[in-house]
């Protein structure tokens, strides 16, 4: 039983020991080799899951839309990703004659590298994590800005109006939705008291003196907003405005084909999967769970979150660009900010540790009661914001209708005259 639970840890320890003792490297070199191997394994995992996910996503979305999806290559179309890969490898790749060559060719590399760099901190099982940074979630948020730079490089380097316009739109979207993401990760860090992803998981794990409540039960509003902004950050439907073909062709990667395009595609999927992993870690308890081994739990949770992504993609219509910005700046950001302040006050006024209650005052409560209060505050903020937004929308519609009526009567008047 123990061997199955700690399978990944045992394998990694065994390989590390093998390199150290059998090959007889110096400790420093051995450590570097182990790190390099771990990096290669992580990158391979990400690349393989990218290939698998393209297939699964096409199948799932097809089923949602009452289609069959890929079914020609191999049984059930299982070899489709392989066929796509061969096509990408052997497709002729043109660089526009007027492009800024260096910038144009480096952009896909930059986007892929930064997308893969996120996996350095994702914990898969106890002790199986690339590196446990004490600034873990902050690192995840920061490394995402690399892809913004890559998108600007692609848009600029292509020397194409559509590409540049698409890059501008995408960047405006990405930087916009980074704000609610920041604010809600901040809420989780407040509750946990640490930025390390391992500490965040431990905070949700059942242990002595810790009831192990998943954060989604305490902080449903940050979870919801993180999910929405995660989808927008990875530019997936319904926020895939750069794929609005009728408006701006194909966005910033209009000029790309072959392997370079594949790297953009890889970056997109790898980022989406990373968001699924981070969501499971922050809100669903990460690898913590009963009976099943930890790596199965994290994969299950991430798969569930990714399924939600695919589900939304299959059902929701694309939002308009002004709606997208309004949703972010006029709804998510103010709501998250107010929620952050209220969570701060709740945590200070209802401490769970006796020492904190004695030093700073407040009412001593059990963790479950605190979680209930947080839940109540979260839901209250959510419903009040929804009510306010609904009222504003109603007013807006009324004003619009009135304007139309006025115009119509004015038209009638001119027609009569």
């Amino acid at each position, binding site marked *: 039983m123990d061997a199955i639970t700690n399978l990944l840890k045992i394998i990694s320890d065994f390989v590390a020991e093998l390199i150290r003792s059998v090959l007889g490297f110096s400790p*420093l070199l051995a450590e570097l080799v182990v790190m390099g191997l771990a990096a290669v394994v992580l990158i391979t995992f990400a690349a393989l899951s990218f290939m698998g996910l393209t297939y699964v996503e096409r199948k799932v979305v097809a089923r949602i839309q009452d289609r069959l999806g890929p079914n020609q290559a191999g049984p059930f179309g299982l070899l489709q990703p392989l066929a796509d890969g061969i096509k990408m490898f052997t497709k002729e790749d043109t660089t526009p004659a007027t492009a*800024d060559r*260096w*910038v144009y060719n480096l952009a896909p590399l930059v986007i892929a590298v930064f997308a893969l760099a996120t996996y350095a901190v994702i914990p898969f099982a106890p002790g199986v994590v690339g590196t446990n*940074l*004490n*600034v873990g979630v*902050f*690192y995840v*948020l*920061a*490394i*995402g*800005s*690399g892809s*913004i*730079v890559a998108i*600007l*490089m692609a848009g*600029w380097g292509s020397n194409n109006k559509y590409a*540049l316009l698409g890059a*501008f739109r995408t*960047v405006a979207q990405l*930087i916009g939705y*980074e704000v609610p993401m920041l604010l809600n990760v901040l809420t989780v860090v407040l509750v946990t008291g640490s*930025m390390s992803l391992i500490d965040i998981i431990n905070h949700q794990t059942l242990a002595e003196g810790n009831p192990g409540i998943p954060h989604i039960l305490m902080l449903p509003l940050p979870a919801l907003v993180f999910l929405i902004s995660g989808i927008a950050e990875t530019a997936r439907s319904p926020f895939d405005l750069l794929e609005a073909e009728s408006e701006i062709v194909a966005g910033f990667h209009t000029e790309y084909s072959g392997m370079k395009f594949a790297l953009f595609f890889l970056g997109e999927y790898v980022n989406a999967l990373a968001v699924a992993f981070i969501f499971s870690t922050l809100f669903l308890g990460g690898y913590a769970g009963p009976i099943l081994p930890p790596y199965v739990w994290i994969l299950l949770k991430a798969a569930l979150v990714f399924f939600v992504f695919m589900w939304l993609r299959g059902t929701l219509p694309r939002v308009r660009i002004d709606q997208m910005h309004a949703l972010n700046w006029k709804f998510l950001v103010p709501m998250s900010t107010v929620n952050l302040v209220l969570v701060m006050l709740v945590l200070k006024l209802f401490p769970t540790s006796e020492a904190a209650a004695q030093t700073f005052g407040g009412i001593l409560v059990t963790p479950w009661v605190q979680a209930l209060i947080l839940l109540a505050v979260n839901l209250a903020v959510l419903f009040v914001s929804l009510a306010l937004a609904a009222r504003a929308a109603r007013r807006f519609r009324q004003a619009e209708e009135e304007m139309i009526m006025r115009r119509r009567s004015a038209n009638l008047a001119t027609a009569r005259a």
Partner: protein
Amino acid sequence: MTIQQLIFIALAILVIGSALFVVTTSNLFRGALMLIVAFFGIAGFYVLLDNGLFAVAQVMIYIGAISILIIFSVMLTRGMQAMIPRNAQAGSVAIAAGLLFLILLLAFGPFRLVVDLSGVPVLATLFRTESPRVLGGLPWSFANREVPETYIADFGRALVDLNQFLLPFLLVAFLVDAVLAGAIYIARQRKPAEVIAEREAIAKEEAEEIAALQPQAASPALPQSAVASTAEH
């Protein structure tokens, strides 16, 4: 030579090289990209200084925010086509910057131990050689300690401590308010009609002022030319 020293030298070459590219290139967009490379290298220095928090913050603020602003304004101002990279005084400025670097090098660098400047009357007070760790007459002592595990929490506590940085922390909020208000006011795109109306108002005001200044010798051409010249810009 330890591995950290090797990493340091690689980072130093990366940072200095890309910084030199930034200040000499005529393609402003590529300059902005190399600026990002320099920022990234400096984040690497922060890692070597055992400060992961600021390495990540550097990536977040400088690469994720400031560089984006710079690239946006490069695109908005279209300033890169046929750009002349240097102005007339570039040569003398280069010499001045080189001299500045030399002085700093002599003040901090190991060269200070080789070149003895203690005999030069004015410089002697700056570069004392009797103690190797003296700058401007102030000695400093090395801590030789590890960074505490809790340095992030310590920093956070210091920020909101009344006896430490609470006041500047709160001032940051007001500063940012002022920056946002000012920048939006300056940069917002005004409608053409609005601009024309504003300029006409200014021109009228100026014309009135001129008329008020010289009421007896009021030549009719003068206010009109003032209107024309203001409207041109």
